[in-house]
């Protein structure tokens, strides 16, 4: 193990990268929760890809005769107040939640990493302006800022996605900037500079790949929470609007009927829990495998 580390560190960059990836993946495979997480996320992705094809019934089909039926062999998750099949609605909702999680993270990462690279590498007044801006954003409790922005933009799924992304980017900016501050003092950067490499080349070829790992690790942990935040906004009426089968929105509608129909809020709630749990288990395992230094911190 020790000798292979030494070899990979001194051999060519490309080969070292592969062996790092392989070693981390091997480590990842040894973490039991990684397998549980992968299984749940895999199931979620499969259901999301299948979309309406996975649903036994039309998730929008209203049937007054079938309203608020308890779970049965015909309707596994029961039906809602309009007689719609809950299993079909929960399965269709997987696609929405997964898409929301991914889009929130991509938006937050593009904005956050970009600004973090600028702040950390160029420094000076730009660093000052960017970091003071993150201070202001981080002064807000996370969900409070997302709610304020979403309320301003108006209710709707895409607005709530933008609102969550706008309240999350500063975390990535801080992460990237902090990493860059120590990375740019590294000897290999000095070596690149003395070989005459320009700023863009150093940034893209030498710094970004090193920051990239940390960002991806953080993103794999955050995606579950992005799904959770979006469901929360939908629950208070700022996200997806009925009749969209978004899990948080379904629970919001279910509140008026929960005393007579326990299944109505319960199954979409379990779906959120399972999706977030899957991503959390996988994210934590990825962090442990790829970055042992971060182990057991938070």
């Amino acid at each position, binding site marked *: 193990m020790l000798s292979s580390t030494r070899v990979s560190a001194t051999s060519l960059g490309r080969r070292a990268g592969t062996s790092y990836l392989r070693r981390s993946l091997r480590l990842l495979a040894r973490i039991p929760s990684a397998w549980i997480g992968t299984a749940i996320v895999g199931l979620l992705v499969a259901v999301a890809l299948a979309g309406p094809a996975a649903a036994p019934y039309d998730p929008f089909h209203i049937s007054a005769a079938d309203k608020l039926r308890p779970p049965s062999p015909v309707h596994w998750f029961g039906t809602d107040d309009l007689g719609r099949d809950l299993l079909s609605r929960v399965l269709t909702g997987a696609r929405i939640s997964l898409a929301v999680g991914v889009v929130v993270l991509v938006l937050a990462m593009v904005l956050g990493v970009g600004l973090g690279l600028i702040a950390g590498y160029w420094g000076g007044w730009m660093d000052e302006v960017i970091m003071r801006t993150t201070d202001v954003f981080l*002064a807000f409790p996370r969900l409070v800022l997302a709610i*304020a922005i979403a309320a301003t933009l108006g209710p709707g799924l895409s607005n709530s996605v933008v609102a969550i992304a706008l309240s999350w980017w500063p975390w990535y900016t801080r992460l990237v900037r902090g990493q860059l501050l120590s990375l740019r003092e590294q000897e290999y950067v000095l070596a690149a500079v003395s070989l005459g490499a320009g700023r863009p080349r150093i940034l893209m070829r030498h710094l970004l790949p090193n920051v990239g790992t940390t960002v991806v690790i953080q993103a794999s942990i955050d995606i579950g929470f992005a799904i959770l935040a979006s469901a929360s906004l939908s*629950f208070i009426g700022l996200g997806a609007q009925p009749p969209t089968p978004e899990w948080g929105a379904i629970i919001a509608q279910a509140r008026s009927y929960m005393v007579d129909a326990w299944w109505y809020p319960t199954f979409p709630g379990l779906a959120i*829990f399972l999706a*977030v749990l899957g991503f959390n288990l996988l994210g934590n395992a990825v962090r442990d495998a790829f970055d042992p230094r971060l182990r057991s911190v938070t």
Partner: protein
Amino acid sequence: MAAYALRRLALIPPLLIGVSLLLFILTHLIPADPAKLIAGEHAGAEQVAAVRHAFGLDRPLPEQYLVYIARLARGNLGVSMLTNAPVLGDLLQYFPATIELTAAAMLLTVVLGVPLGILSAVRSGSTIDLLAQVLSVSGLSFPIFFFGILLQLIFVRNLGWFPLSGRLAITAIPPHHITGLYVIDSLLTGNAGDLGSALSHLALPSLSLALTSLAPTVRITRSTMLEALSQDYIRTAWAKGLVSSRVFVHHGLRNALIPVVTVLGLYTSGLLGGVFLVELIFDWPGVGLYSVNAITAFDYSAIMGTSLLLTLTFVLVNLGVDLLYAVIDPRIRY
């Protein structure tokens, strides 16, 4: 210490100016024209223009910001369109309920989370440890609004142990207003009936709200306690022949508490955000419920006022947490 506290306090005004600027930008970049919104749907162009002039919305943005911040400095947060009353007055009326809920959740987090974390560290590898870890991962992934609904289904609908919603039984007369926190006020006035009612109404909402901070608290207490227990001074303590409770509490816990305080500071953010969800579910008359009701009425002054209040609370709690470090850990010198 005093110098550090002053320096930290001095950083707060610029931060609040930034916060107010962000909220100002939000309120003035609303896609819908606020003047049209105020004038009403059927107002003509002239009326809208009159409203725009009356509210100063036709002046340059920097000037509007100065007017806005001058109003804020005087405590004028605007008038709520929903209650038709000044937002500041509304917030002051509803805030004690939110403080009571958040404080109770914080208390539950410490009272349940820290002992559970210590127990799983001391009995590392045992069934209790495994159970505590499974619970803390699940707790972090559980949507608190769904948790609140589950608690209502189980403890209200099925078992009937707790009331469904509100702060007091409908028949009860609220205790004499001293702090606005019903539990404290009923204690101070010796009103046992109100105290019981207030506590039973508080139980489920505070447990729901505590969920997100409980899980990480268990996890961090466990890992820092494990780390503290592997230190040399713990070996020394054992070698001195101290009883295990003294080793764990006096030598281990004190050193494990520092990161726990950090986490409590960090998760205040989660608690203050969760207030919107929990107050909605349990019909808890705090600023969160006030604000959620304002959303559906497009009542921006109320929403922005609530955001400002919760952010100010968050900033002050963080200051308090930083100062608390120095008290717990004498090695920290600012």
